[in-house]
Structure formats: C-alpha cells, structure tokens
C-alpha cells in the first residue's frame, strides 16, 4: 500500500512538471501568435508591406500619409549581423575544439575550459558596454565612420557566441569512438589527416548543431548589439554603416507603445518572426542530428 502511494505521488509530480513546461510553451506560442497576427488581421497590413517595406512610421497621422510598418531593415539587420558573427566565430571555435580534444587534451583543456566557461558567464550588458567603450571608439578612430556599425555589432556577437559553438563542438568530437582515430592512425594517417578526414566529418552533425545554436543565440541577442550598432532604420550600404535588428527595435519601442495599437501589434509581429526563426533553427538541428554518424 505504502509503495503504491509513493509510486502514484511520484507519477503525479513528474506529470505536473511535464505538463507545466508544455503548458508554458504552448501558452507563449499562442500569445505571441495571436498578438503577432493581429497586425495583418486587425490592422490590415499586407504581408508584403510588412516584410518588404522599408519605411517605419508607426504613428504617423492619416493626413501626413498614414502609418507605415515596414520591417525589412530590422529583419535584414538581424540576418546580416548574426550571419557575419557566425562566419567569424565558427572557424575559430572548431579549431579551438579540435585543439582541446585532439591536440592538447591535457593542459589545453585545463586552461581553455575555464576560460570558455568564464566567457559564457559574462552578462550581455557587459559585452555591450565593453563594445561601446572600447570597440566603437577604436573603429571610429582607426577605420572611419562614427563607430556605431555592423562591424562593431558582429564582432561583439562573435565573441558572445564562441562559448556556445566551442562547447557543443568539443562534446561532439569527444563523443566519437576512440577506435576510429586508432584505425586512422593504423592505416598510416598523420594527425592532421586523421583530424581533417576522419574526426571532423564524423562529428559533422554535432558541429552543425553548435553553429546553429550559436546563430540562434546571435539572432536573439538584444542588449549588447543594441548598444553598439547605432540603431538606424535604414538599409545599410557598407560595413561601417549603423544598422538596426529585430530585437533592438523591439526593446527600443516597447515602453512607448499602447497595447492594441498598430505600433504595439507590429512589435509583436517582429517577436513572432524571432519565434519562427528559432523554430526554423530547431528544425535544422533535428535534421542535422538525424543524419549524423554519432547521435
């Protein structure tokens, strides 16, 4: 009797926790979708205008031409900054991961592991502040422009996503069976050939997962990016131009809008884009991990 009671209560607790998580996810997705779709349904903004429009006058009175909510500069800004960050960060991260697992598994890991954990623990506002105080003046004085630029944005981001990509890549390299490496050596491969032709291809799905996780972190980062990119609602023409991202546009405006207005709804639509992007990233990871050699 007593045993049965314990069994049931254990079941209850785990059910409740699982249900809570599912409920929260569903509730958040539902809430964002309802709010996000109302730009198109309630306010009657066309999808084309929202995704391709470049003009952002969410509160312009009718007599001056009416409101315009073109989110193209934000979407483009988010994509540019996070893709560039991933391009910079990926080679660096994978090389560091290889170094830690294959080349210097002893002392290399003892030094690099804590360094990465430290990097991961620094709050984003600190990254942004360092970017604002060091990187922005440096770009202004050494390269040109006024410092607030795409360049500053993706450099800050690429440092921020390093820990994510490195740790996922390290885990996937470490999970490879030791025999594969031994077999490669036995066939006469050099260390470089083993790494390049056996280990990295074998760990591909894990590496892709790391990159996509880094990309999604970069895409969702708001504060640090907002502090250094200059928040200018315009399509950029050079890497030294200021830019604006979805996240920074949302944080900038949200305190000033009235619930239910077109302006507020279009911010929710932007949030919905972020959500859809993260679904998309999860899909990629699922797909990659299914096709990988090591699960």
């Amino acid at each position: 009797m007593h045993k049965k009671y314990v069994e049931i209560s254990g079941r209850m607790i785990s059910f409740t926790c699982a249900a809570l998580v599912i409920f929260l996810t569903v509730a958040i997705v539902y809430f964002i979708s309802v709010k996000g779709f109302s730009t198109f349904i309630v306010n009657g903004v066309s999808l084309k205008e929202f995704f391709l429009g470049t003009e952002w006058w969410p509160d312009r009175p009718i007599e001056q031409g009416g409101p315009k909510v073109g989110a193209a500069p934000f979407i483009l800004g988010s994509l540019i900054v996070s893709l560039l960050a991933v391009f910079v960060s990926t080679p660096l991260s994978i090389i560091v991961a290889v170094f830690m697992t294959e080349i210097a598994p002893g002392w290399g890991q003892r030094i690099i592991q804590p360094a990465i954990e430290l990097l991961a623990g620094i709050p984003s506002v600190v990254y942004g502040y360092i970017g604002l105080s060091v990187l922005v003046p440096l770009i202004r004085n050494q390269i040109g422009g006024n410092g607030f630029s795409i360049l500053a944005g993706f450099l800050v981001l690429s440092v921020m996503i390093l820990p994510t990509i490195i740790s996922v890549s390290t885990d996937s390299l470490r999970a490879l069976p030791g025999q594969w490496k031994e077999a490669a050596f036995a066939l006469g491969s050099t260390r470089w050939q083993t790494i390049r032709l056996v280990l990295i291809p074998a760990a591909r799905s894990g590496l892709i997962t790391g990159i996509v996780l880094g990309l999604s972190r970069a895409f969702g980062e708001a504060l640090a990016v907002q502090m250094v990119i200059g928040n200018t609602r315009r399509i950029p023409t050079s890497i030294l131009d200021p830019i604006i991202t979805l996240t920074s546009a949302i944080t900038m405006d949200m305190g000033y809008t009235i619930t239910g207005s077109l302006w507020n709804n279009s911010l929710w639509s932007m949030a919905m884009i972020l959500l859809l992007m993260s679904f998309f990233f999860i899909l990629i990871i699922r797909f990659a991990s299914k096709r990988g050699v090591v699960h």
Partner: protein
Amino acid sequence: MSRKVKWLLALCCVLALTIALAGCGAPQQTGQKEDSKATELSGSITAVASTAMQPLVEEAANKFMEKNPKVQVSIQGGGSGTGLTQVSQGAANIGNSDIFAEEKEGINATQLADTKVCVVGMATVVNPGVTVDNVTKQQLIDIFTGKITNWKQFGGPDQKIVLINRAKGSGTRATFKKFALDGKEEAVGMEIDSSGQVKKIVAETPGAISYLALSYIDKSIKALKLEGVEPAGENIVNGKYPVWAYQHMYTKGEPAGLAKEFLQYMLSDEVQNTLVPEMDYIPSTKMKVERDAQGKVTQL
C-alpha cells in the same frame, strides 16, 4: 494504472495549472483602499514612471514614506506609453508621462485626470568640439531633417553632423519635435533608448547633435542657444524658450485616497520648493505661461 486513468491524471494537472496561473493574473488592487482614520495613512500605491520623471518621483516617494511609515509607494520605470497604458487599464494607480494623454494614440484621455507636477526644459546638445553656440529654428530644422549635413555650412568646423535621436515613442523626442522642429519629421538617424546613453554618446562622438532634458546636462556636452535664448530656468518660466514639457501624473478618474494624498504631497511646498529645483526641474506653480494639450501657450 490503466491508460485512461493516466490521461485523466494529465488532464487534471493541466487544468489545475491553468486555474493557478489565471489566479496569478488577477490585478492587485490594494491601492484605492482608503484608511478611515485621517491622521495616519496606510496602504500601498503603484506609480509607473516615465524615465524623465523617475528620479524625482522616487525621491519624493521616499520622503513620503518616511512621513507615513505605513504607506508603501512603489515606483516602476517603463516609459510614458507604459505609464499611460497601465493607469488606464487600472494596473497602476498613477501613470507618469512627459506628454499629454491626448497626444497618445489609443488612450482614452477623457477618463484620466491630469496633475501637472513640474516642468522640464529640453535643450539641443552637441559634442563640445562643435564651435557653434547658437542655432536658429530654421537651422535646427535643416539639421534634423537632413538638409544640412556638415557643421561648416554654418560656421562650425569641417565635421559631418551625426544625428542622434531618442527612440520614436520617447516623450523627449515628441516634445523636441513639436516645439523645436515645428513638427517636421526627423531624418533617419541613430536611435538611443535612454537619456543617459545619449549624453555619453554625444560627449564621445565628434560632430554629434541631440537633445536632452536639462536635468541631464553637464560639462561633458554643450547646450546650444535657440534663437539666442539660453535654455535655462528663467527663460522657460516666462515662455521665451519654447522647448519644455509638463511632467504629468495621471490617475484614472479624479485622484482619491492614497493616490490623492501622494499627488497633494507632490504639489506641496516641500516638494515644489526644494526637491523639484534641486533636480533641475521647474515647479509648475512658478510657471508664468500655460500650455494646453494642443500646444497653445497662454500667459498667466
């Protein structure tokens, strides 16, 4: 356990959760509770502050709580829009705003009661490296609409003008646009979401121009005269310098109970003559001109 029972159990859990969460969402309305005894006040109120006003309201709230130890006044930041939304939804007792509720789309201004606590002046500020001291209104409009792009076009150094705006919904931006730019739409420029950051960026970026409430101005940046008029207390009081805004505290319906007491305290000599000028605001009781929601100014 059979499959059916399992499902039933899961369903019950979800239901229980829904109910629990719904319970959390109910508004906490302790604020309007009025103590019957006139001698000692108790209870709690919430004020949602605009960034321009937050330091003043916080300081005043601390003093108010010192005097009435049983009272809890909590101040939340947010922005003018948040303040107005929350107070009209009844989620906060007082909503602070830089702009008239009538100017904000989507707010039913008729159900809100306005208390004008003080006035804050706003000045055009530039990087100290800019040698210009005075601008005319037309020049200012040309700069902010993007017609003039270099300081040398009116006697400054050969330096590109860097436009720095506040976020689009900011009260400071709305005031500056309305009274300094005659409502002309600003050219696309950098947008910064707090006054503190604007100050830092203007101080560090050569050729930068922006606008700030007088309470934020110090030696690291330079405030420009507008049409030869210094943006300072006296010129605002008698209406010579046009760029200023009331700091409003809105309540839903006429203020009552604790909210009323707190608003009265904000208007008392104690706050108006010491705290308000100390923090570089101008007491609304001192103003010699009055402005309505449409921007019409009348002499008092």
